[in-house]
């Protein structure tokens, strides 16, 4: 294992680009899971990929083009209503089909599609760092405002309707926030890595946490640790970041599922 690349300044920008994104994804993932909308994240990531490639085909920077598709997807998700798995399935297929057709028919698209599917975080530059910190900052500012409204809407959906409170705007802002963060994350971390960081930390946190606050903290810690470990290991072992990050998160999920059984058997 060669640890020397870790200290190379050239990898500082990718590291700075990924960190706020994985924390934002892990936090958003808890709300998506509670709302039974985690599949939407995969649909939005596919649409962001297709949009990023379409942007590249017309000379637009992919990180700026990707949010267009994701935001259109968020609009579709909002209009079709909450928890519409069929709509998410359509988003996934539309994004996948468009991505591969663009990749097959443009030289730049082919290279970019491979980079996004492989999850090449190490290509991230100043633009990605700027967008990532903007996305992370928006999550930090908006989530505490949105959270009580979204939780109340989940557990007491009739309360806001009965009192004629404008709950629609909280749902819409949340959908747009998720779409924006996923778009930037997809272009920076890779498609499946972005989905994994929104899906798996929340899944692990949900099974073990004793409170909502604990769930948020656990999800953030799991996402952050998985990111640091996969960043270092991918460099040291010369592996693609995305698949390695997903593999580490899946190992974490397996250990988390095994632990109660080990506890029960007295082996832990």
């Amino acid at each position, binding site marked *: 294992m060669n640890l020397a690349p870790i200290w190379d300044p050239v990898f500082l920008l990718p590291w700075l680009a990924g960190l706020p994104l994985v924390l934002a994804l892990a936090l958003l993932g808890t709300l998506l899971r509670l709302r039974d909308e985690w599949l939407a994240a995969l649909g939005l990531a596919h649409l962001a990929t297709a949009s990023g490639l379409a942007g590249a085909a017309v000379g637009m920077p992919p990180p700026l083009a990707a949010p267009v598709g994701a935001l259109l997807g968020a609009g579709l998700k909002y209009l079709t209503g909450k928890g519409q798995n069929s709509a998410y399935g359509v988003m996934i297929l539309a994004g996948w089909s468009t991505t591969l057709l663009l990749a097959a028919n443009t030289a730049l698209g082919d290279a970019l599609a491979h980079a996004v599917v492989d999850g090449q975080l190490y290509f991230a530059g100043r633009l990605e760092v700027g967008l990532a910190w903007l996305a992370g900052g928006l999550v930090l500012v908006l989530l505490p405002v949105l959270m009580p409204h979204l939780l*109340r809407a989940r557990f007491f*959906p*009739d*309360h806001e*309707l009965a*009192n004629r409170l404008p709950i629609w705007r909280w749902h819409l802002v949340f959908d747009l926030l998720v779409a924006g963060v996923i778009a930037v994350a997809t272009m920076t971390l890779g498609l499946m890595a972005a989905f994994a960081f929104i899906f798996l930390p929340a899944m692990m*946190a949900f099974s073990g*946490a*004793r*409170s909502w606050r604990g769930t948020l903290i656990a999800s953030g810690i799991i996402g952050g640790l998985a990111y640091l470990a996969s960043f270092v290991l991918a460099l040291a072992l010369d592996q693609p970041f995305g698949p390695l990050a997903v593999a580490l998160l899946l190992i974490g999920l397996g250990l988390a599922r095994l632990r109660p059984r080990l506890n029960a058997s007295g082996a832990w």
Partner: protein
Amino acid sequence: MPAVSDGATLFQAQQWVAGYADPVVGPVSLTLSRGEIVGLSGPNGAGKSTLLRSLLGLARIHAGHWETRPDLVWRYLPQRPVRPAQAPLNGTEMLRLMQADRLPPPARLAAKLDRRVDRLSGGEYQLLQLWCTLAGPGDVVLLDEPTNNLDPEHGQFAAQAILDRRSAHGTLIVSHDADFLARVCDRCVEVSS
């Protein structure tokens, strides 16, 4: 919607007919004042829940004369409270969500508040939802089958909680349990489709 002029009256309805695409229930005439507990009784399928939902705008009022105080805050316990399969919130967080954490909860409930709501029994979750509805700020409390999932002992606890909080608001209760309604209500209105 016209406003009632009597200071204590929260709302009054005359010849109230409610439903969805078509009328389901009514006509019913009803007045509710602060501090009052009124029951809606009737056989299954009579439309009692539809009446409650029409008050909240969740079902349609087809006919009748209707007056309410302006800016009423409504609180509503549905017949089947939402309960996601995985919900890692504890009871204290749930009460805070509904601003129902400013009053000390009854001892029986307080002992369960540090547990995740998805790990409470059906009856415990129903009591938590009931207290969320009763203990927060509101003018009118609508309870749809509040004794669902409750054994007789927990039903007694629910009745006491409703009576303890009666002065804070006007309460309208739908229940198929005639004994429960007789225990907590000042009067009952029979509903038929």
